[in-house]
């Protein structure tokens, strides 16, 4: 159709001439379109990158692609916790059966059992640590192993404890001066004990009966120390072997994995930083981060000043950790590093921590290079055994002792207060804490209860009723429940046997879980597989919910969707404005050009020619400026990449960026979407003025100018 082609050429020529004839208008309209296109490209590139990063982090650390949990649960599954704490989930009683069904569904790669909860963890205190050291010395001493080395260490450790008691006494007498008399009376015995523990007599006669003296310190003095105690820990109990294979984001930063089939815990690195690290060191880290990442200045920042002050005044934690030999070594090192003449370690520490913007970096280095090697920076270290307590499913407190095999980090979530504090525990220990037995075991117990005539196990009596019954009762003995379920029953020996025991995969699977993470062979077919699993489960008689990773991760996973809504609302508004503005401008232009349009009609241009002319004008503006905007957007993305991305200014951003900075990737989709929106908007905005123009009659050409 050469006719069409010629007419089109003519249209383009007129359209462009018209656009050039009114440059200012064209530039303004174009500017709006340009900005919109730029926003679409940059915004959606950033969001896509965040989306991809978070998807990787969340799917690869905890969520998998799909999560399955009981449909009878009161709450929705929230892997990272919800507004109201942990979500209350009904247990999956027989995980093995569930796994069998899910594994048969096409595209399923792995099914990993999980139980997520919070618990209290005893972080120990300096007294316990010092006593432990002394006890080891005493043991050797009593065996007659009296090397000069041991004698020196024994003496140093005793001196350390003596100093600690003295410090504790000072501290407590200050604290108690504040409270009223009745409390002082109540604490009279404690005060007397402390007084005794600081006397020359006590320490002079220590060696006469070292075990009795140790016991006195352990039972009477150590409990008075207010440091240590419990902190909360959030953990996921899981089949650690299956977990390690299914999730790629977990990285052991210190220590080793829990041996195959063994009990044990891997502590979240961020959790350790926040809760287990020596407060002084933590504060130094935070000051450094604030200065480095956020360019804050101690001189101008009240919060940083407070941290500096707290470090200056709270030297006790460090003093308590060091025995006299170490204290001397530390003082010597500090004197050298600081070039100070002070002799007292406390004064040296105060000098070290009295920092300003000029000397901070140097002091920070001194702390970590000179002092830190002498200190235990974390209250828990690899190889320690920690006690974790949690209210169990049936209400009583259960506790387990667990060996710490290492510290873990989740790549991309290293600094996320939400997702990065997670610790990982073997599923058997979780089951002990959760206090829920396998289907078999609970059936067994039901049978026992029936035969024993126990109708209901109340919260208060649960332990005794279930596990601690009189020794002679044959029914109770028949219940093969392991010791740590019972509070306080965790003996060291029992621990050792438990720690050494290896469990088969069948034992791991055969029991209760709260949710099951499902990873897929082809993650892009998530929707289809979600439906398949749901139908397979309901066919097998399971009453389960199957949700995708985004839903399972609660608010965290929905952040991207939310940001997308915000972005597209902004884009929508911009283009709605563009539509209205362009439309109005073109209507005005059309009204001014009535005579010209009438003339075109008179000399033989059809209506559709006139319509096409107007639409072409707006489309040309849209396409040109849209393309320029998209190109500029691509340029912005490119420059951001060159510059190494947008640095994460705070921990939240670190999480959303899945790393220290957001390095955006330009998506073809972003460009396509931008151009598609621009085309639609520009065609639409030309349509109405075009229709007005098409209604102009050739009679208009005949009007004289009067």
């Amino acid at each position, binding site marked *: 159709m050469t006719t069409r082609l010629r007419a089109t050429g003519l249209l383009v020529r007129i359209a462009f001439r018209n656009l050039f004839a009114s440059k200012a208008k064209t530039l303004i309209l174009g500017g709006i379109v340009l900005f919109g296109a730029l926003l679409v490209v940059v915004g959606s590139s950033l969001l896509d990158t965040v989306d991809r990063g978070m998807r990787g982090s969340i799917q690869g650390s905890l969520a998998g692609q799909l999560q399955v949990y009981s449909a009878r649960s009161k709450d929705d599954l929230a892997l990272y916790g919800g507004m109201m704490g942990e979500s209350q989930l009904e247990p999956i009683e027989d995980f093995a059966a569930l796994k069998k069904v899910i594994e048969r569904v096409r595209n399923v790669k792995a099914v990993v059992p999980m139980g997520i909860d919070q618990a209290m963890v005893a972080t120990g205190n300096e007294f316990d640590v010092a006593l432990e050291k002394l006890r080891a010395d005493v043991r050797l001493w009593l065996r007659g192993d009296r090397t000069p080395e041991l004698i020196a260490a024994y003496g140093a450790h005793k001196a350390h404890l003596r100093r600690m008691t003295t410090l504790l006494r000072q501290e407590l007498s200050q604290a108690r001066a504040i409270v009223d008399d009745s409390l002082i009376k109540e604490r009279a015995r404690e005060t007397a004990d402390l007084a005794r523990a600081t006397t020359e007599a006590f320490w002079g006669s220590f060696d006469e009966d070292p075990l009795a003296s140790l016991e006195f310190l352990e039972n009477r003095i150590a409990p008075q120390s207010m440091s240590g105690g419990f902190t909360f820990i959030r953990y996921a109990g899981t089949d650690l072997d299956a977990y390690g294979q299914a999730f790629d984001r977990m990285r052991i930063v210190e220590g080793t994995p829990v041996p195959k089939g063994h009990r044990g815990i891997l502590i979240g690195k961020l959790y350790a930083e926040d809760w287990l690290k020596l407060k002084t060191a933590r504060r130094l880290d935070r000051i450094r981060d604030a200065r480095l990442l956020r360019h804050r200045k101690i001189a101008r920042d009240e919060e940083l000043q407070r941290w500096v002050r707290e470090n200056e005044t709270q030297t006790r934690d460090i003093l308590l950790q060091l025995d006299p030999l170490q204290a001397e070594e530390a003082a010597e090192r500090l004197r050298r590093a600081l070039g100070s003449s002070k002799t007292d370690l406390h004064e040296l520490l105060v000098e070290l921590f009295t920092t300003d913007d000029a000397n901070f970096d140097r002091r920070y280095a001194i702390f970590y290079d000179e002092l830190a090697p002498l200190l235990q920076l974390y209250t828990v270290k690899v190889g320690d055994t920690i006690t974790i307590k949690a209210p169990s499913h049936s209400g009583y407190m259960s506790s387990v002792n667990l060996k710490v095999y290492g510290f873990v980090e989740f790549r991309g979530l290293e600094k996320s207060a939400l997702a990065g504090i997670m610790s990982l525990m073997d599923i058997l220990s979780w089951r002990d804490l959760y206090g829920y037995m396998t289907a078999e075991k609970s059936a067994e117990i039901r049978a026992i209860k029936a035969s024993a005539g126990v109708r209901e196990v109340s919260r208060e009596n649960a332990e005794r009723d279930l596990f601690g019954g009189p020794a002679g009762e044959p029914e109770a003995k028949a219940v093969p429940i392991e010791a740590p379920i019972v509070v306080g029953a965790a003996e060291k020996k029992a621990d050792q046997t438990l720690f050494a025991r290896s469990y088969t995969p069948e034992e791991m699977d055969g029991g209760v879980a709260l949710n099951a993470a499902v990873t897929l062979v082809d993650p892009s077919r998530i929707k289809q597989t979600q439906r398949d699993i749901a139908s397979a489960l309901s066919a097998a008689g399971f009453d389960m919910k199957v949700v995708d990773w985004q839903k399972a991760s609660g608010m965290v996973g929905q952040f991207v969707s939310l940001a997308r809504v915000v972005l597209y609302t902004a884009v929508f508004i911009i283009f709605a404005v563009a539509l209205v503005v362009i439309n109005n401008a073109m209507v005005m232009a059309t009204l001014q050009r009535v005579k010209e349009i009438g003339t075109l*009609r008179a000399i033989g241009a059809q*209506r559709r020619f006139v319509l096409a002319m107007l639409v072409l004008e707006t489309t040309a503006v849209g396409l040109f400026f849209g393309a320029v905007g998209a190109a500029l957007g691509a340029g912005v993305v490119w420059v951001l990449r060159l510059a190494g991305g947008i640095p994460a200014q705070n921990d939240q951003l670190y999480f959303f960026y899945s790393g220290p900075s957001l390095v955006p990737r330009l998506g073809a989709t972003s460009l396509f979407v931008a151009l598609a929106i621009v085309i639609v908007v520009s065609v639409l905005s030309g349509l109405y003025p075009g229709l007005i123009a098409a209604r102009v009659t*050739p009679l208009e050409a005949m009007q004289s100018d009067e």
Partner: protein
Amino acid sequence: MTAVVRVDAVSKTYRLGKTEVPALRGVSLEIHRGEFLSIAGPSGSGKTTLLNLIGCIDTPTSGRVLVDGQDTKDLSERALTELRLHRIGFIFQTFNLVQVLSVFQNVEFPLLLQGGLARKERDRRVSGLLEAVGLFDHAKHRPSELSGGQRQRVAVARALVTRPGLVLADEPTANLDSQTGANIIDLMKDMNGRDGTTFIFSTHDPKVMSHATAVVRIADGQVSSFEGGGSAAARAGEGS
């Protein structure tokens, strides 16, 4: 001799709010090929309305207008546009060139709308016409760079470029000084003589009228007189 245009008892009434304003009241007219006909009358007499009806940009309220033997009432809007494009050339009182196009492009425009002509042929025809109207050297100029007379010459060239059987000119000299106006009329007359194109132009200027081979006078929407050249067979005022 066939009639290029036949106007048969045509009336045209405009609606102005609630009142009806009769612009034409029973006009009959026959215009033959090759005529150089002037429609004369004071402003408001209905001469522009008559030209609009003949030019197929308006249709009569009653009566028939036949252009090239086709009743304009039977034709769709699209067919009327086609008819204008292929059979009729227009010259306007206010020149009405497309401001954003050059002189050459303005003249070429109807040919592009028509399509069908090869580029070479198009160029030759446009150049030829520009030469004929004396504006070959101004081909690349914009209308705004030309004088009124020059613009109207461009308009004449544009009206003739499709070689229409009929050219309509509504007061072509009204916006020009008398000398320039006379030149335009001379130019039109030349074209009329060269190709035998029928020209119908409206005017109220007696000097311009004097060039016409026939003059139809209109007053109050009716043909008041017909002064004709020999070949014209126009019937005036019949049936009114």
